[in-house]
Structures are given as C-alpha cells and as structure tokens.
C-alpha cells in the first residue's frame, strides 16, 4: 500500500463529521427543491490536478484493488466471537455494496483450520464408496467435463446468530454479512458421480454422499444423494476468475440454497455411502437447539430472509430529508424471491418494494424503495417472500417455535431505528 493510501484512512467517524457539515445545508433546502449555490464551486471553476496532469499508465496495476477512497469497504472480524482468527469468520460489507454479485475480495470467509494454499498441480479429487469404479481426478481432468454457470448465494447457518437472544451488533455487515453471492463455473456433481458409476449405489433414496476438504479440519458433511444429483456443483471459478484461496482454491463445492458449511472448500473427496457420517459439523455444530433442549438436525435449507442494507447503522442518511433510496437484499434457499415488502413504521404497514431484477433460484435479489423522507424517525424493516409461498417471519414468531438458544438459521425480520439525524441503530420492536 502506498504512503498516500496510508494517509487516507477514513474512519466512519471522520466520514460522518464531514457529512454533517454538508448535510446541514442539504436539509435546509428541503424536499423537492433544487439546492441553490451561493458561490461558484471551485471544483468546477478551477482547473483541478486530475484534469491537467496525467494518471497512471496501464501497467501500474496488473491486478487491481479498489481505489484508495474505498478502503473502508472491507471484510471485518468480530473478535470476541471466536477464540482465534484461524478457526473463525468475517463479514461481507453488505452495507456498502449494491447490485447482487459479491466481489470475491470482500466476500466473507469462514475457515475451521485456516485458509490453505493448494496448487492446481497438487490438487486431487477422489470419488469412492458405493460407486462402480472409485476414481481420482486431477484439476486438469475437471476442466474437460461439460461446464455450467450459475449464480447462487452462500449463507453461513450462523448468519444473524448473535441476534437470537436480542439486538447485539450495530451494522448490517455484522448482523447479516455472513453471505455472498457469486457466479460459479464448474461441473455438476451428477456428471462426476455418473463418471464413477452409480449402479453400485442401488436405490438412490436412502443413500448419501460424504464430502470433505483437503485442509486440516476437512469439514466433512453428509448430503443426501438426491440433492447431490440435483443441483450441486463442483466449482473452480467464481465471478469469472479462479476461486480465491479463502474460498477454497482451486475447487469448492456449491450446494445451492443449503447452509454454507456444506459448501466444502478445497474439496478432496466424495464418498457415496448408505448413511450419514454424523460428523462434528452436522451434530455438535449446525444443529438447532430448541427451548426444551432437544435439537433439530439436517436443517439444510436456508429459509427466506432479507435485510435493508442502506440506510443502516454503518450507512446512515447523510443528505437530510427529501429523496431517499431504501435498498437491501433478499434471498431464499427454497427458490426464488417473488417479492419484498418494506415497512418504515416497525411493521404496522408495508409497501411492496421494487426488485432490481426478477428473483432467480437460490440467489440474492436486490430491492429498492424510493421515498420522500420527511426527516422523521423510522423503524425500518424488510420482509421477503419466496416462490414456495414462505413469508419471512418476525423475531417473535421464530422464537415462539424455537426459543432463544438456536444460534443457527435466524432468518427473522431485522429492524433499524433511523433517527431524525439520519443515524441508524439495530433494535428490536414489539
């Protein structure tokens, strides 16, 4: 990083201070009125350096990072959550992104034994168990199978988990940032399983595949064979380029609509089995403890969920009253988003938001609601609906069924308390 970039280390506080100064002027202008400039703007009337001198040449940045002014749009870690950063998680800055595709460089990471470096040349994928011929593929072999391109969201089962017992973290990045949405290129798992031959598996109905990674955790998970043959991908590219190290380079599993833990990274082995392994990650973790102490297991589908990403605690309103774009993300592991409703009064009344594009299967959908903000407090909520007819529940509704100890699979409606000064806070409402 250059010295220049180091000098420019924007904190949100600094940003807000600046915004407040300009915000006063904007607010004074009022809704629906164009601002009148008192004096000519020197950014227009004076020749600026960038309009006179020269910029960087094409060889300055062989592979580019975002411009220095965006360096606060990064993944963040919540230190107290885990014992260590190696077996831990960080969060996508969803409050600062738009559209639906998550850039790989800021897409959340979750590792159980750290992100490993595995060369394509050293990569092997084994398929064994109840198959006709156990096979080993090299990376080059995988590139010779017919390929598919699909956009899917990947959400950690623990996304919003810290919010089960009450409002805790002040920011959409922290409450809802264990999610990303990428376009994957890869081979369908069905193609690879059929290459090994499934006659030995007999009846598919009661069969499973056990999938594991090459890292020290191996993060093994059992997946019903029917899902494995349905839409699971063995992916090697995301958003057009190689997977990042932290997302499983060179090869990861994509299990559309199902909890992120099953999307095994550094995928090294797939075993067709006649039962689930009941591994650590599907028994002691990623199971949902109910109020009576019993626990739900195999809660794979991520139910419909949404969140307003702006305004939100990390993305306050800085322009005063008048035209305001309310925007957010919605998704469902059970199908496509069919609609999103937004409430500014804590759920008394709802307005249907505009979808940035029609919802697609198991992928993020962007929504917008453009309003003329009168500058008064709002209790901002969004509510997703999906193609299965599911409607995103309130926290109270979820707790009624599951109690307070579930940790995982919290898809409740989120509330931001937007105050008159534009600042927002994570709250719960009755």
């Amino acid at each position, binding site marked *: 990083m250059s010295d220049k970039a180091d000098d420019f280390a924007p*904190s*949100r506080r600094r940003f807000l201070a600046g915004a407040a100064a300009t915000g006063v002027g904007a607010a004074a202008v009022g809704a629906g009125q164009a601002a009148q400039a008192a004096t000519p703007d020197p950014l227009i009337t004076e020749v600026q350096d960038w309009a006179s001198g020269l910029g960087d040449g094409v060889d300055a940045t062989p592979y580019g990072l975002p411009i220095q002014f965006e360096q606060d749009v990064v993944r963040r870690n919540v230190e107290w959550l885990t014992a*260590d950063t190696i077996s831990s998680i960080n969060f996508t800055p969803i409050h600062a992104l738009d559209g639906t595709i998550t850039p790989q460089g800021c897409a959340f990471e979750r590792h159980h*034994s750290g992100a490993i470096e595995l060369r394509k040349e050293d990569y092997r994928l*084994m398929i064994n168990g109840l198959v006709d011929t156990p096979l*080993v593929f090299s990376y080059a072999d995988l590139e010779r199978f017919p390929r598919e391109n699909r956009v899917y969201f990947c959400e950690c089962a623990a996304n919003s988990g810290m919010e089960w017992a009450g409002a805790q973290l002040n920011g959409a990045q922290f409450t809802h940032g264990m999610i990303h949405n990428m376009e994957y290129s890869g081979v369908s798992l069905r193609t690879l399983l059929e290459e*090994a031959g499934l*006659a030995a598996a007999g009846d598919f109905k009661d069969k499973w595949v056990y999938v594991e990674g090459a890292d020290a955790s191996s993060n093994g998970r059992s997946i019903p064979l029917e899902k494995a043959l349905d839409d699971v991908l063995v992916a090697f590219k995301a958003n057009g380029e190689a997977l990042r190290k932290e997302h499983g380079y060179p090869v990861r599993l994509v299990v559309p609509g199902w909890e992120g833990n099953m999307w095994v990274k550094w995928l090294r082995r797939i075993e067709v089995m006649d039962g689930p392994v009941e591994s650590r990650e599907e028994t002691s973790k990623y199971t949902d403890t109910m109020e009576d102490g019993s626990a*739900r297991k195999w809660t794979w589908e991520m139910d419909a969920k949404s969140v307003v990403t702006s305004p939100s605690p990390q993305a306050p309103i800085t322009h005063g009253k008048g035209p305001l774009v309310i925007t957010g993300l919605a998704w469902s592991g059970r199908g496509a988003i069919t609609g999103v409703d937004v409430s500014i009064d804590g759920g008394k009344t709802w307005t249907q938001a505009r979808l940035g594009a029609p919802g697609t299967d198991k992928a993020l959908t962007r929504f917008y609601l453009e309003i003329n903000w009168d500058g008064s407090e709002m209790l901002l909520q969004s509510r997703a609906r999906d193609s299965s007819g599911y409607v995103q529940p309130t926290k109270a509704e979820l707790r009624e069924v599951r109690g307070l100890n579930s940790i995982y699979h919290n898809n409740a409606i989120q509330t931001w308390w937007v105050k008159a000064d534009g600042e927002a806070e*994570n709250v719960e409402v009755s």
Partner: protein
Amino acid sequence: MSKFPNVIAGAAVSLALGLPAFAGEYGLGRPALPEEIAAWDIDVSPDGTGLPAGSGDVFTGEEVFAEKCAVCHGDFAEGVDNWPKLAGGQGTLDREDPLKTVGSYWPYLSTTWDYVNRSMPFGAAQTLEADEVYAIVAYILYSNDLVDDEFVLSNETFTDVELPNAEGFFVDDRLESEAHFWKAEPCMSDCKDTVEITMRARVLDVTPEETATTDVAVEQAAATPVAAEPIVEEPAEEPVVAEVALDPELVAKGAKVFKKCKACHKVGEGAKNGTGPILNGIFGATAGVVEGFRYSKPMLAAGEDGLVWNDETLAAFLAKPRKFMKGTKMSFAGLRKERDIEAVVAYLRSFDN
C-alpha cells in the same frame, strides 16, 4: 469408510490388466488405488464402521491430553479462554446459554473419535496414532463422568458406549412445525396497533470499532511496545546483527515451520497475544516480558535471572521445551530437526524491526 472392499479390489485388478476401468462416458480421471483410498477414506460412522484396530485407557489418555490438548481445552477438558469446553454441561440444554460438550450434547462417540483423529491437535492434525486417539477419547469420556478410571476404549468396546444425548436430536420438521410461515396473504396494513422499541444494540456496545484496517494496525503496534524494547536498549548492536544474519530462503522455510506454532503464537503486524505470547522482537528479548501475557512462574523467574532469547537459548527451548524449562505453559512437544529450529529462529528474527 467404504463397506465394500470388493469394489476397490475390482478396480485394482482392472488397473493391473491395463484395461480402462471407467464406467462413465468421458473416460476422464483414473481408478483410485486401494492404498490411496485407505489413506483418505478415514471417516468413522456411528456404528463404528471405519474404526481402526487399537485401544487406549483413561490414564494414558490423561497424559496424552495434557501434552497435546490441554493448552486449549484445559487439563480437565474444561476449556481455556474461548476454546471449546469438552466436558460438563449436562442438564443445561434447556437453560439459558446451554453448555454443549461431548458429554452434554454430542450424540455419537464416533464423531469425537473421527474429529480428534482427523483434525486435532489444532495445527498438527493427523499426527496422532490410533491408540492415542482411543486414549484421548477415553479421557474425554472420563472427564464427563461417563466412564470410570479403569475404562479402556477400543474398537471392540466402542459401540458399548452410548452418549447421554444420543436421543436428543430430531430431523428437520420446519415444513410442519413452521407451516404457518407459509402464508397466502401477508398483512400489508394495520398489522399491529402499537410499536415499541424493546431492545437496543447500542446499549450492549459489542460492535467492533469501524476504522480502516490501516488504523487498526497502527493502534495495535502502538499498544505493544514491549517487544521492541530490547532493540531500544541496545541500539548500536541490534541493526547490525539483523542485517548480516538473515538468509531469505531460511526465513521462508521458517515461515512454513512456524505453521506448527501459529495456533498459539502470533507474529507480524497486528499480532496479539493468544494462547501464547506474540513473538515480535522475541529474538534478543529477555524471557517473559511480553506485556499482557500471563507467563508460567518458571518463565518469569528465568527472565528475572537474565535469560535472553538468542540462537542458543531459543534452539534449546524449541528442541525440548519442557526439558529446557520445567513447568513452562508451552505444551508443544518440540522441533526434532535442527534445520527447522534454525529456520524458525531466522523467521522470528525477521520480525525484529
């Protein structure tokens, strides 16, 4: 672990004959050899399928656990800091903040065996012998009051053990128990009479400060000046030593070896104390002086007696930590290869500046 060794044998035969063994239409990949499958197919199922022959008793388990596990999980499997607690918690699952351990929550013993065998110890996975895994698992059972101290766990006795919460799980029933979330017409207006704020995140104040990453690094560097102190004390000597000694290849090799240490020790920009102290500037520093780290008494005493970390002392400590310093908290067994020790020392020296 496959229950169908005949399939594997079949593949081996066709390979030996040089015949294509492919079932699929693309003819890509190659048959997996039995040795390869044996090396990777190590999963263990609840009925014990996949367990290798072997055994271990509680007493042995206690020793192995103290040496290889206790640094994170505690001597009695009670957990250190935020690291997982493996024992206790029975009867807490229906309370606020249930304690989920092998004894209170895990349904199958096979899960414990499989996980210890494939992923532990943290930072040195797949280094345990089968008998050690049996012994560790036996000790975890003992720590949970599930077996007595005479107990021996083996592939023979394995399925005799049933964990207390084996019946505590049920398969996802959301389609029934949450059927009311599938609504024909969600409410759009007059959905409730009043709305009150019942809880605020700001009251808890647990959200990380939102500063740019560069700011964070600067703050942390400022907060840990102790590591740099020895350099300040000997300004004339230090830079010279650092310049001559460091071979970049050796440093690179040291970075690799250091992976064995990383679970507990952090080094470099933004490093913080973890299970072990940060190691920035450790070369040339007096023992036991990293601020904010709770050292063992012997380590503190050694520092007061003038122990300074240099090539000789570090090499001796890293070769056999507990021989060099009886009573150290560092539970690492030691680096066997001299070359690895040299490399790690070079790597640590590269963080002196």
